[in-house]
Structure formats: structure tokens, C-alpha cells
């Protein structure tokens, strides 16, 4: 049979042009990810989707599926690498979950749970980052941004607005807002935009909705992100 790849010993069909993660999702195999979202141009920045393809590590969200690929997804080594990546994301920003409206609905946190991450391992940066509460409906808290670029892509590709961009490099990397003041209130963003709802973390929040669902009854409080992601992303059909 042609057009198949092998993930952890399981034969999985793919269609020409599909990435590894798309083929895996369609077949019900979860590969951890944060910057990938079906229907969005792959970005390949978070590296959580790292898999081993024929002996080399690649990002499953950007790497095209091809005949004869032997892929390792679930191994202790990869779980360890992904855990370290997630821990770096936590210490690089300010993630104090008990004070965050997104807790329980947060993909970063849920990925950490999935990877059995119990601590942050590295010394904390506690960087000084701003909060932009200027917009009447949308809050932008830079403390929780992981630079996944999803809001940038959502605004450009879905909303046709270019409200967000990522500027700077390395430790100086930061999210910027396209408006004369640099504030969200003066940008073109609207509460109904994809960009206002796409953030996997608590960096972009809709105001006055945070506690409509109590803590303990939220998406990832009793369900793993592997289950939730597969259900949502298979539904999306990409």
C-alpha cells in the first residue's frame, strides 16, 4: 500500500501535501503542539511537535509526510525534550496560573499536564512585561505570551487586519500591536476577530468572561489535551 507513514509502529495513511501532524491527527494520533492549528499556515516555532523521522528530529507541523518515513512520537527521550521546552516557556514569561483567568482552559498548562511536568526546573527570568488593558473588550497581558504567532496569523490570514507582529530577537522578542500608540485600543482589532480568540494561553483574553465557568469545571480540568485536541482538530477536518 502506498502513501503511508509509520508512527510508533502504527501504519498511517497520508495524502500528498499533508504534514506529519495532519496525517497523525486524521489517524487519531496526538502529537503535542502549541503553535500549530489546523487551517493556519504552519509556523514551526514552539518545537513541541518534535518527532524523530528516520533518525532525525523534525517539527511534525512543518515536515511533509512522505512514503517510507519511520517516525518516533512517543518515547521517553522525546517526552523529556518536550518537557524541557515547556519548562523553558514557563520560566521565560510570568506564568502564575492561580492568578490567571485562563487556568484550566490554557493549552500551555494542559500540555504541561500531558507531559507530566511538575516543576519549572530552570531558574525563573521573572521578566518585566507590560499589560495592555486599554481596549474595552480585549486584554493583552504580555506576561503570558509564548510567541506562538497564532494571533499574528489569525489577524493577517483570517481577519485581514495585521493587528499583531512579533518584533525583536532572542530575549528581546516581544509581541507588538499595529497602532500609532502601540495600544490595542487604537488598533483595528474587534471582539469578534479570530485574533481575539485564538491565543492558546492567557495572553489575549476577552474581558468580563474569565470566571463564567468556575475553576475545576474547565476544559482541561478533567480531560487531557490529547483527547481534546484530537476531537477538535479532527472535527475541523484538516
Amino acid at each position: 500500500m502506498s502513501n503511508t507513514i509509520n508512527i510508533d509502529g502504527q501504519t498511517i495513511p497520508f495524502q500528498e501535501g499533508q504534514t506529519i501532524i495532519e496525517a497523525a491527527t486524521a489517524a487519531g494520533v496526538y502529537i503535542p503542539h502549541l503553535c500549530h492549528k489546523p487551517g493556519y499556515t504552519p509556523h514551526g516555532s514552539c518545537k513541541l511537535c518534535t518527532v524523530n523521522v528516520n533518525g532525525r528530529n523534525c517539527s511534525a507541523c512543518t515536515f511533509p509526510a512522505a512514503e517510507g518515513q519511520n517516525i518516533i512520537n512517543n518515547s521517553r527521550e522525546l517526552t523529556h525534550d518536550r518537557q524541557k521546552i515547556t519548562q523553558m516557556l514557563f520560566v521565560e514569561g510570568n506564568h502564575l496560573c492561580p492568578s490567571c483567568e485562563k487556568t484550566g482552559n490554557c493549552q500551555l498548562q494542559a500540555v504541561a499536564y500531558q507531559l507530566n511536568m511538575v516543576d519549572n526546573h530552570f531558574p525563573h527570568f521573572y521578566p518585566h512585561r507590560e499589560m495592555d488593558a486599554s481596549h474595552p473588550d480585549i486584554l493583552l497581558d504580555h506576561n503570558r505570551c509564548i510567541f506562538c504567532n497564532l494571533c499574528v496569523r489569525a489577524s493577517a490570514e483570517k481577519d485581514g487586519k495585521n493587528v499583531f507582529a512579533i518584533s525583536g530577537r532572542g530575549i528581546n522578542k516581544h509581541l507588538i500591536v499595529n497602532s500609532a500608540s502601540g495600544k490595542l485600543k487604537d488598533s483595528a482589532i474587534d471582539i469578534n476577530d479570530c485574533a481575539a480568540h485564538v491565543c492558546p494561553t492567557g495572553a489575549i483574553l476577552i474581558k468580563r468572561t474569565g470566571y463564567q465557568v468556575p475553576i475545576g469545571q474547565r476544559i482541561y480540568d478533567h480531560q487531557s489535551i490529547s483527547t481534546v485536541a484530537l476531537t477538535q482538530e479532527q472535527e475541523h477536518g484538516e
Partner: protein
Amino acid sequence: MANKIRVATTSLAGCFGCHMSFLDLDERLVALAELVEFDRSPLTDIEHCSSTCDIGLIEGGVCNSENVHVLREFRKNCKILVAVGACAINGGLPAMRNSFSLEECLLEAYRDGIGVENAQIPSDPELPLLLDKVRPIHEVVKIDYFLPGCPPSADVFWSFLSDLLEGREPNLANELIHFD
């Protein structure tokens, strides 16, 4: 029982919520008391660790010089040191002050804040000095295990202690891992 496991506990820059959650073990505390003896702890009022503690449970991060001394005493006297709860693990809510300078925090709390009367910054020599930032405890001493949660549920304590007491490598099930 001659060979009871000695457990010491303390709260550094914490709110005692983790200790309260530990007490939520309820009737399981009876079973635990068969196997465990408490050493230094707010539960016993013993002031210093004996040199033979097996397990030290630390709630809270470090925010002042006294926290650092207590933490070092625990590390010196406990074979296994455990970071209990969000504050011990990443600084937690007290670490929200890390976005501000220490000076700003003191001025806000003791001089400029709403309702402050007789404004003065406390400077009694008996008071421990504040650190410039609140830090998680693994940045100060080596930590052997981490129990996440704000607070960790009684089931987390139970799972961890059962593993340890029955000679297994502690490992929290996924559904017991929560950061809130």
C-alpha cells in the same frame, strides 16, 4: 513502632493553604500517623529540625532572609526535600511582586497605599530582610520532588506519601497534576 518515618513541614512565603490541604487527608491521617512521626512543623510547634528527618515538606517560596535560613536547615536535616504547592515551585502569587522593585512595594504598602496611617517603613532589626525578588525554593537548595497545585489536593499528598512509604518511586498520575 520504633522506625517511624520522620516528617518535618514548614511554610515559608506561603499562606498555609498547603498545610490545610494536607489536613484534608481527614481519616487517612489516622493511617498515616501509624507510619509517620512529625518533627519540626507548625502542627507540632517543634522549633528546629532534628538531624534525622526523612521527609521535609516545604510550602511557599523564599521572600526574605529568614526563609532562606529555614530552607537551608531543612535541606541539611531532611533526606528528602519536597517543594509543596505553586509558591514553592515557581514563587506563586507572592512572586507577583517581582514585577515591581522592592522600593515600590514598600512605599505602596507602608506609605502611599490607600488607608495607610502613621506611614513608616518597618525597620526593626528583628525583622528579616526582604529579598529583592521572591524565588522558588529549587533556586536556593536542591529539591527532590515537587507537588504542584494551589494547593495540591489531599489526594496528591496521599499518592506521594503512599508511594514513598511503600518503597516506590513517587509518580503523580496525570489527573493529579494541576497548577491551580
